[in-house]
């Protein structure tokens, strides 16, 4: 997928990559789709790794991650106010995001606390988010008079709605077809971990990447839009399709997840549409 400057950019995600003070999950941005080399742990100039560090490792020695300043996401594991306060300064200065998933978010208070302390917060792609937690976070995002950092994906969605820019859930959750690739521990290539967990792959790192487009997974994803409109699925009439592009129809619990995000998007869109703001 071409980036804004027209130069192709690929993002390759791998787990337990040999980088940093300890093997870490990583997303490497590269102008080349040279998967065999990247899978062997060899980076070239111009290739930027973004690492995912568990908070318990980060809090032990934040200075060890100084070279990953703003190219690092810290993963909440057992978050608490005390732990957050202990690492808030390095978290602010070094991390791009503090990442939460449904297992670590609790009632959302720690994520809100982090955002209020100017730590950018990100919510992982998951089909298991409790709606009331996302509502709390969205409520804080929409109404806090002092928030100065993003809570993703709400921030990017709000910016897209407000500025009428194109952003999709596929991009926000690192599943943009043609841009994002995930290499699993057996060197199989998929779009993202949730597809790999279902046993769906484009191929392996040792196959020519040009052949990925011929895989059933690629074809399925590429043909999603056509199928949704041909079948006149809910998406065909949904005002949020512009941002969703059927992302949640690919969820295992498609309908409840989709319905929840429609409600959240209703609130977001209601707050950020230019005509609503003017009114």
């Amino acid at each position, binding site marked *: 997928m071409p980036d804004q400057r027209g130069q192709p950019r690929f993002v390759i995600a791998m787990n337990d990559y040999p980088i940093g003070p300890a093997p870490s999950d990583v997303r490497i941005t590269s102008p080349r789709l040279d998967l065999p080399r990247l899978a062997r742990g060899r980076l070239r100039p111009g290739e930027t790794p973004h690492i995912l560090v568990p908070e318990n490792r980060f809090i032990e020695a934040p200075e060890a991650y100084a070279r990953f300043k703003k190219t690092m996401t810290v993963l909440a594991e057992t978050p608490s*106010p005390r732990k957050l306060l202990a690492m808030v300064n390095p978290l602010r200065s070094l991390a791009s995001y503090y990442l939460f998933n449904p297992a670590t978010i609790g009632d959302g208070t720690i994520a809100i*606390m982090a955002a*209020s*302390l100017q730590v950018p917060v990100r919510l992982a792609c998951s089909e298991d988010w409790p709606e009331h937690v996302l509502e709390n976070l969205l*409520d804080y995002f929409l*109404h806090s*008079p*002092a928030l100065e950092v993003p809570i993703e994906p709400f921030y990017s969605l709000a910016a897209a709605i407000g500025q009428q820019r194109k952003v999709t859930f596929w991009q926000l959750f690192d599943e943009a077809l043609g841009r994002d690739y995930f290499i699993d521990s057996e060197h199989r290539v998929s779009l993202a971990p949730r597809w790999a967990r279902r046993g769906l792959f484009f191929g392996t790192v040792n196959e020519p990447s040009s052949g990925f487009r011929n895989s059933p997974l690629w074809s399925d994803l590429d043909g999603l839009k056509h199928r949704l409109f041909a079948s006149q699925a809910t998406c065909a009439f949904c005002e949020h399709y512009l941002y969703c592009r059927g992302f949640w129809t690919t969820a295992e619990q498609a309908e409840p997840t989709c319905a929840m995000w429609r409600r959240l998007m209703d609130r977001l869109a209601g707050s950020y549409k230019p005509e609503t703001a003017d009114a």
Partner: protein
Amino acid sequence: MTNILLTNHCQRRCPSRVDLDATEDVQSCEMDMRDLITVADMIVASGDLRAGVLAGEPTPHPHCCEMVSYLLARGIRVVFFTSGIYREELMDELEKLSQESRFRFLVNVNFPEIKTGQNLLRQERFIRRFAGVCDLGLNVSRADLDPRFLSDLARRTGVRNCRIRVGLAHPIVGEANEFLSPADYREVAGSIVDLAEAVFDLGIVVSLDCGFTLCSFTDEQLGRLRRVKAETSFICRAAVGIAPGPIAWPCFPLAKHNRIRIDGNTRLKDLQDRFWNINNELRGRSRKGVFKECDDCVYFEHRVCEGGCLTHLIPDAGIA
């Protein structure tokens, strides 16, 4: 400055205390982190980055130090109102907090003659330990007591270059608390001037809390206060208090009279304006100040003095 009440627990039974237990719409006895975030947002958005953390006594709150750390991390200056009587296990955490430049203790001291169950030795030990970051507070509920014991206390504990905040005990709407009658203000004024002079050589200045009247002091006393840099104000400002709930009120004495539930949409300026308007309306329905002379007072007319605490007037306003 916004006052944040972390809990309604307190180990002391001060004669002029507010009994928050009896406030029916304060649902929780302890502020939780989510509510504190709402309050901190409101303070940060207002631009007035100052908060008093109090209760009762804030330290019985199980997450008291975390909450103060959070406020400091938000860039808010914190004055921590306390009796200085702690569980020992809190000392290390308080020591850490005390090293933050935006943090100060205000230790509420009672007259030794008033028995509140406090352990004076422990309190004195606390003041000595944190002498560099301590201000002292005294609430005057009786005119016959001499506040100059604070000068001795400061000398014994090494407290220097700080403030002594002197308040008057006012009636609390809806409570039968002990308060100082305006008839005693002149007597108290004299002893406060004596205190201000007695501690000046230590670099300590006396700061008058709200509710004092200008005419309680003679011209000579006002001159003496000025000479020792005492901070005087006779104007009523809404010192917004926020309790668990979160519930806001204009000040402690009016805690049970005017209150409003706040949320993420509440702005501090709106709250202050609201309370200001309600207070003005109350004043308009009663005589102007605590003395009948206030009605014709030129200093009242030009807002040099607002005639003491509004709560003295509320029975006249037909509210209580």
